[in-house]
């Protein structure tokens, strides 16, 4: 009798690693649902690029970062900087998932008096590490943090998430050259490579390819992965963590609007968009939310 490998795999006791990956998938799904809800309540925001980086954020906050809600000012914490600051709804959602802020409060996105501004602001929310929104700057700030930590002999690491359109900023390449020159192996750049930017495809606005070759030429350690494959993301973080003498870049191929069928790979959902009730419900159903959960998210303010 031939072995049914598929059924063995399914029935095998789950390893700790598999259990963690399953947890992270749930967290990523929460990030996507919360993102849709907060943008719905705000009446504006950037859903496409927030949905594309949800898995990356869940892996960072749920498994990779030595960063805890009860020690957000610990000098030896790992730092995460959202250089693509317009994906703020996803950052707030992952923060809510992992205890850095209240999930319900974080639904008050872009509202007067709310600390959850349209782009992250460190004086409103210290755990976002720095204020971002002007593309390119978060990367440089992260580089400065990595440099400062090394000078102070800290083993903490710094991670920063960049958009693909962001790579058109000249400052990004200033920072890329600088980080390699200073051998900042405590710095890890993640590129949310969803191939779309504000107005159109990268290839139509300003070509990025050959992208890996550019970073290789700048002497970075490079990994190119599926940015929605949690196992691959975690494995790549492990490799970046042991890369010595050079900074690491993870080029994460993603799908803009990932998880919401009508948004996937459609430039118009970059933002800043207003979601109707029907669109928001559609999106949440597409993300696996059911009746009560949809009501809680959309009527919960």
């Amino acid at each position, binding site marked *: 009798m031939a072995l049914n490998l598929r059924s063995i795999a399914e029935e095998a006791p789950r390893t700790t690693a598999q259990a963690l990956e399953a947890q992270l998938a749930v967290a990523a799904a929460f990030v996507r649902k919360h993102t849709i809800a907060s943008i719905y309540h705000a009446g504006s925001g950037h859903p496409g690029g927030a949905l594309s980086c949800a898995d990356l954020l869940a892996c960072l906050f749920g498994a990779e970062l030595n960063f805890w809600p009860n020690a957000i000012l610990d000098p030896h914490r790992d730092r995460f900087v959202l250089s693509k600051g317009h994906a703020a709804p996803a950052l707030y959602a992952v923060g809510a998932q992992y205890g850095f802020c209240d999930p319900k409060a974080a639904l008050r996105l872009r509202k007067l008096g709310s600390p959850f501004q349209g782009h992250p602001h460190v004086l409103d929310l210290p755990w976002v590490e720095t*204020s971002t*929104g002007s593309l390119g*700057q978060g990367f*440089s700030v992260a*580089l400065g943090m990595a*440099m400062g930590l090394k000078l102070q002999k800290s083993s903490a690491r710094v991670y920063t998430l960049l958009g693909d359109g962001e790579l058109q900023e000249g400052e990004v390449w*200033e920072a890329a050259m*600088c980080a390699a020159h200073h051998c900042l192996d405590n710095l890890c750049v993640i590129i949310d490579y969803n191939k779309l930017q504000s107005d159109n495809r990268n290839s139509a606005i300003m070509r990025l390819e050959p992208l890996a070759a550019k970073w290789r030429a700048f002497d970075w350690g490079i990994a190119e992965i599926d940015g929605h494959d949690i196992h691959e993301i975690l494995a790549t973080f492990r490799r970046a963590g042991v890369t010595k003498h050079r900074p690491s870049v993870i080029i994460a191929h993603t799908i803009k609007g990932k998880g919401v069928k009508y948004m996937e790979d459609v430039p118009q959902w970059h933002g800043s968009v207003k979601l109707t009730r029907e669109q928001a419900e559609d999106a949440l159903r597409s993300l696996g939310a059911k009746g009560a959960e949809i009501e809680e998210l959309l009527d919960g303010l």
Partner: protein
Amino acid sequence: MAFDRPTASLLEGKEAPALIGTSGDSLREAFGKALSGLADEFPTVVVLDADIAGGTGVHHFRKSHPGRLLQFGIAEQNMMAAAGGLAATGLIPVVTTFAVFCLRAVEQARLSLAYARRNAKIVASHPGLDVGPDGGSAQALEDLAAFRAIPGMTVISPADPTEMALATRAILEFDGPVYMRTGRSPAKRLFGDDHSFEIGKGRIIRDGGDVTIVACGVEVARALEAAELLAAEGIAARVVNMATIKPIDADLLRRCAEQTGAFVTAEDHNIFGGLGSAVAESLAGSLPCPIEFVGVKDVFGASGEPDELAELFGLTAPHIAQAAKAVIARKKV
């Protein structure tokens, strides 16, 4: 009457230490030496350089504390924002480059330093026509305006090497983002060892009741000369060294308005947006009175020696004296 002891009258040499009025270090050299001297007392200070340490004066720091001089190459945007990251780890970054290249990174200073309220210092050499032969492209005449418009940014332009050394200590002791001008050319010594400096405070350095000349940077020496020229014509001009452009010393300006009723501002900068604007804004809200603005009149600079340029663009002592007479004529009787 409340005014500070006039240690600095340029031409009243008999009361002042012998060196006063002579040519001293450039402000950039004075800054560089002071910073190097303060480095052990301020162990968290790191200096950021964009390949012009020899020009900004921080070659002194590089020599004394090489491990704390961070090289960013010719890439000012990255350097400026990286200062925000360094500050976030508890260090005190001192960003050094030419004033004109600070303009290139104004937005980084805005978002990553001021908006995030980082304890970072920007020290800009080569401001204004004082740059001289490098010409119009290199002469920043807009930097005070640009940095003054950023919320929470303190803006300072000391007048002589003694004051520069004191200001260097003051900005390191101060918690918050600062933009400070140094200068390229040798600067006249105006102040003796008894001089003191406080961020946010202007100083009356020569008294008079007919008009107040408010100056900063290299124009302070010219303002003192102008006061001397005016004295020869029987006009008593008060000279205020307004080393802090933001926050401006509104109390002192109001007092001068009450006591003299007319102002001349003098700066090596565009007449729009810098010291003159700060003075006018302040007085408009307290005690409006006539003001004449000495500065570069909304044009770009050119190559030439600093003194030649000052003459060509109307920044010399006779220009200031002329403006003083004009503004006195406008006073309400």
